């Protein structure tokens, strides 16, 4: 280690007498990098680093420039990269998403920000028809290295038109990659991977997670850090029941797992990270280990992410199941505004605990009768 440091310093042109100082600096930096970072900072740093690494990357969206980002994700980027690379657009989602796709056809790497993914419905024609299907329709001649990002899903008290979750909608379309980060490390790694990816990526963030801090490892802070697309992460190992979740629900699942642990149920929590391509092998391997499954999502139940996971399990690991799959989703109603109704319309930690217990006790009941 010391030799490496010496070589590094010599390479950087530092004279030997400062070696000790150098080591002290590196050591202190190593300690201080076991630090916390909010998801907002993680996203901001990811975009920043990718923009400085590749001049073809630019960001376009409403209020990304002078306003520093509607949720302050693109803070400071306008000052750093100028108005040619950080573009404030008028309120025309169809227009600027289409312009982004056209730019991507010609080799630029746009990052299109939707103020919320609800507004992507005005641009969905371009996301699906111009971006997702182009590589196929042109037989590989035209690839679309574009990233559509923005907050997705329910926030707090914003009503029906601002709380829709689009994970299921976009993941049903071949040609798109759909990512949903949870922690800051996820956010950084996945966004960097998305920007470097040659295919269209829909990057679903969560407004309520923006302000949450997570510890980040030293390697996550490195500017070449990247997470693989299509691999889920096992956040918590367990052996009694598998709980899959993405985005904000991972936090809820982890808290539910703590509660379940006190009752003797050891839950395994999987952070999906990537909705398309879905990491079926990790989920199946986990279910084959635990024999029970609870899927959680915030979106509407019919044709949701949980439905796809259930189908995957039934196709590949049916004999391993000891209990029916429990599927938790948002209520099958447009999001109400009233605070108490909104709480009922979104899965809460108690719902997860209850479902996990149901998955565990059901088969113990069967065993008793047998």
């Amino acid at each position: 280690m010391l030799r490496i440091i010496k070589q590094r310093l010599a390479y950087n042109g530092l004279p030997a007498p400062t070696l000790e100082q150098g080591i002290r600096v590196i050591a202190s930096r190593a300690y201080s990098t076991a630090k916390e970072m909010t998801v907002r900072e993680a996203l901001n740093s990811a975009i920043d680093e990718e923009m400085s690494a590749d001049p073809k990357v630019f960001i376009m969206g409403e209020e990304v420039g002078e306003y520093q980002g509607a949720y302050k994700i693109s803070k400071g980027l306008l000052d750093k990269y100028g108005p040619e690379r950080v573009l404030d657009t008028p309120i025309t989602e169809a227009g600027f998403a289409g312009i982004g796709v056209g730019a991507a056809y010609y080799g630029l790497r746009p990052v299109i920000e939707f103020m919320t993914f609800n507004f992507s419905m005005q641009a969905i024609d371009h996301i699906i028809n111009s971006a997702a299907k182009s590589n196929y329709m042109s037989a590989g001649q035209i690839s679309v290295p574009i990233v559509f990002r923005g907050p997705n899903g329910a926030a707090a008290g914003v009503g029906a038109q601002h709380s829709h979750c689009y994970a299921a909608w976009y993941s049903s379309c071949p040609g798109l990659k759909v990512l949903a980060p949870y922690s800051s490390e996820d956010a950084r790694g996945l966004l960097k991977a998305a920007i470097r990816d040659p295919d269209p990526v829909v990057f679903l963030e969560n407004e309520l997670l923006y302000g949450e801090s997570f510890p980040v490892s030293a390697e996550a802070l490195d500017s070449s850090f990247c997470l693989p697309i299509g691999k889920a992460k096992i956040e918590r190992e367990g052996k009694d029941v598998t709980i899959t979740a993405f985005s904000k629900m991972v936090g809820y699942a982890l808290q539910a797992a703590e509660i379940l642990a006190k009752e003797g149920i050891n839950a395994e929590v999987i952070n999906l990270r990537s909705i398309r391509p879905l990491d079926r092998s990790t989920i199946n391997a986990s279910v084959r280990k635990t024999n029970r499954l609870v899927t959680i999502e915030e979106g509407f139940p019919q044709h949701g992410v949980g439905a796809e996971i259930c189908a995957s399990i039934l196709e590949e690991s049916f004999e391993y199941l000891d209990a029916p799959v429990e599927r938790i989703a948002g209520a099958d109603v447009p999001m109400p505004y009233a605070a108490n109704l909104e709480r009922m319309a979104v899965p809460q930690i108690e719902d997860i605990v209850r479902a996990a217990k149901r998955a565990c006790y059901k088969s113990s009941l069967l065993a008793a009768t047998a």
Partner: protein
Amino acid sequence: MACSATAQIIQPLSINSARSVDNSDACTKTLSPSSFLGSTPRINKKLFAVNKSISPLARRPTTVFAVSSDVVKEKKLKSNSSLSNLLITKKEGLELYEDMYLGRAFEDMCAQMYYRGKMFGFVHLYNGQEAVSTGFIKLLKKEDYVVSTYRDHVHSLSKGVPAREVMSELFGKTTGCCRGQGGSMHMFSKEHNVLGGFAFIGEGIPVATGAAFTSKYKREVLKEDCDEVALAFFGDGTCNNGQFFECLNMAALWKLPIVFVVENNLWAIGMSHVRATSDPQIWKKGPAFGMPGIHVDGMDVLKVREVAKEAIDRARRGEGPTLVECETYRFRGHSLADPDELRDPAEKAHYATRDPITALKKYMAENKLVSEAELKAIDKKIDELVEDAVEFADKSPVPARSQLLENVFADPRGFGIGPNGKYRCEDPKFTEGTAQV
């Protein structure tokens, strides 16, 4: 109704910086973008004298023109002497004042309640733009339609939705106009024909156009006696959105009874209008689609009212749509969560001097229409009304658990068939209270 804009000088409110656009004879005269109040604090003090004897709307339906305002001092002195020259009667004046003051007091109370935590989510306030809402909506009948954006509290109030119901809706209580299910951005009222409250920019315009279509359909196909008009309110940011142009085209094509009212407050969250628009003069987009485009000072309720009379009458007569651009300003930020750092304080100060409520007060005082005491009585009455609305909303119950699954479908059999083979909605336990559908 007799329209005084046809033959008379439009009495100016005694404010220095009344600004107007003139296009008297030279249709080729173009205004450079710098003469438009964008994000600069400079005031354009050009005054124009205009040929006022024609009713511009009737005579040249496809030409671009603007409402004139004459600020020449002699004319003003002359007008003060004869009451018949005034635009409004005392009764109308009081009505306008009361409505604007209600809008202002209500929105101020909303801000207070938000900071106390009684209201949540997105709240967009209308302070400063009251003249547009009052100027237009007070000319409507109950059956006419109003469609708005997320900045819709005052539109609903002007249309007649009781303040109690709006406040309850904002608090998320079951006594709200939408039973607490809609919220600040989604005010609907079938009784008063308020068709929303839409969160997406531009979403309300096709809906309003559809309402106008219904009116025409009722008249021509169903042969009912129907002359209802639709008003679509939206902002400057919306005028760059595709839906706006599509609806201008179709409304003009089919001669629908609609008035498109642009509340140009120069800012879309933090995006200045001139930065987002290739040609910032929105009224010009009307003639491009074959309808008159008018620019009016939206801080002056009397001017807005005169233009509104013409436009609404035109629609009622079946002559088709009109595009009215009201230059106005919002005194507060985009929403209560907006720090409002990008707007120049000098610009804000300038528009604060053009406060529509003080302007109307001054006009009525100078023309001796009302006394100070009468205005104060109205102020007191409205303050009490708003306080009562807050109390009512506070005391109202939150929605019951069973309300979660209600109102999804008009025909609740849309929830399908349950495990017992009967329709789910027929099971008495259906709305009893778990979210496990």
